[in-house]
């Protein structure tokens, strides 16, 4: 098991090198002919107007919040899903199922609440 994680680590290191290597090659090979106009931010050919880091739609934030809620739910369902068959074999399937059902229903009510409040509308 630990050995497998060692393989994962080696793979990650080799992967990072594979990604960094071309950048080094580019640094060595690519031509350099820089002038200020080239470094202008692209804005359909005109000189950029104002800052790019401006205000944006609050909806993105709302969706991110609901996402955190449900992503945590999904994470909690994983261990349940792994042991579910084991519990069935021990004749405890109904018990474990009702527990997960309660969990999902409570979060489902959260989804319905957000839905009714209009948090899922994209206008």
């Amino acid at each position, binding site marked *: 098991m630990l050995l497998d994680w060692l393989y*994962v680590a080696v793979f990650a290191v*080799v992967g990072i090198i594979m990604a960094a290597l071309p950048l080094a090659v580019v640094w060595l090979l*690519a031509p350099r002919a820089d002038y200020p106009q080239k470094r202008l931010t692209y804005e359909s050919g005109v000189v950029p107007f104002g800052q790019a880091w401006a205000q944006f*739609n609050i909806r993105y934030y709302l969706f991110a919040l609901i996402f955190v809620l449900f992503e945590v739910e999904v994470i909690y369902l994983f261990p349940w*899903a792994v042991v579910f068959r084991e519990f069935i074999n021990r004749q405890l399937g109904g018990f474990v199922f009702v527990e997960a059902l309660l969990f999902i229903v409570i979060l489902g009510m959260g989804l319905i609440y957000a*839905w009714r409040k209009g948090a899922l509308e994209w206008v």
Partner: protein
Amino acid sequence: MTGLLVEALIKSIVLLLVLLTATAYLTLLERRLLAKFQLRFGPNRAGPLGLLQPLADGLKLLFKESFVPAQVDPIIYWLAPSISMVTALFVYAVIPFGPSIQLFGRSIPLVLADVNVGILVVLATSSIGVYGIILGGWSASNKFSLLGSLRSSAQLISYELTLGLGVIAVVLLAGSLSMVQIVEAQRDLWFVFRFPYGTVAFMLFLIAGVAETNRAPFDLPEAEQELVAGYQTEYGGFKFAMFYIGEYMSVITISALATTLFLGGWYGPPVIGRWLPGIVWVILKIFAGVFWFVWLRATFPRVRHDQLMTLGWKVLLPVGLVNVLLAAVVLALRSR
């Protein structure tokens, strides 16, 4: 210990080279197939059937000038494409390509690392991949980039839930998070044929997979008519290529995951399954998935952003939740 390290090193390098080559040729495959769909020829001049085209493209991108726009946040600007590419590569550490094979008198498993939480590694890595896009769009200090990366992150997090729920149905059926054990649980019947919950989970997974890879018809983050090139507007040369490699590699990743989780991995169809070795079945299934991705792009127009969010939150998420419960009920009742 040293021997093991060398073995891991050799395996990693071989796997990565195969993957990068496959990704390069996926770009050619897509261009050729799209051309066929539209009754064009596509790139056919570089070598026979245009087979040298990816090589020419790669060399061109290596020799491009690599300048950094004046307004960007330099560290993050360099980091973002690297995150995109490395996370796309990293997933393959746990994806199995076949049962063990005999080579040089030893049994070599065709999976780099059979960790017991394999599918969680995949999901976690793809979540980190979102950072590449968000940081890339934010650091570029360009309005198109910022809007593209915001859209992209909203889309990715919305569909990640659906992806996770599809995977949970599989975990319920297999009773394990290990990719190898999930495949072995499909020896008799592929999970996609466990009607209805397996089939529904498969469809949820595919739809979410298309959205996760930012592919048509969910390619809003780089809707070129509205956002120039989305989060990669300010990127050129090889930094652009890294985003590109990341995106195309995740197309292969989603196909490979669908193969592993739903289409029986290295197990072929019932009667003719034994005619070909396991790894050939895996490659055939991945190829079918990739073809499906290109076919989809040639067929469907892009959806609107509100349609995308409505589909994700009001249709796929409830269906996914109900599907998980349905799978649990059927499993519990069947064991009676």
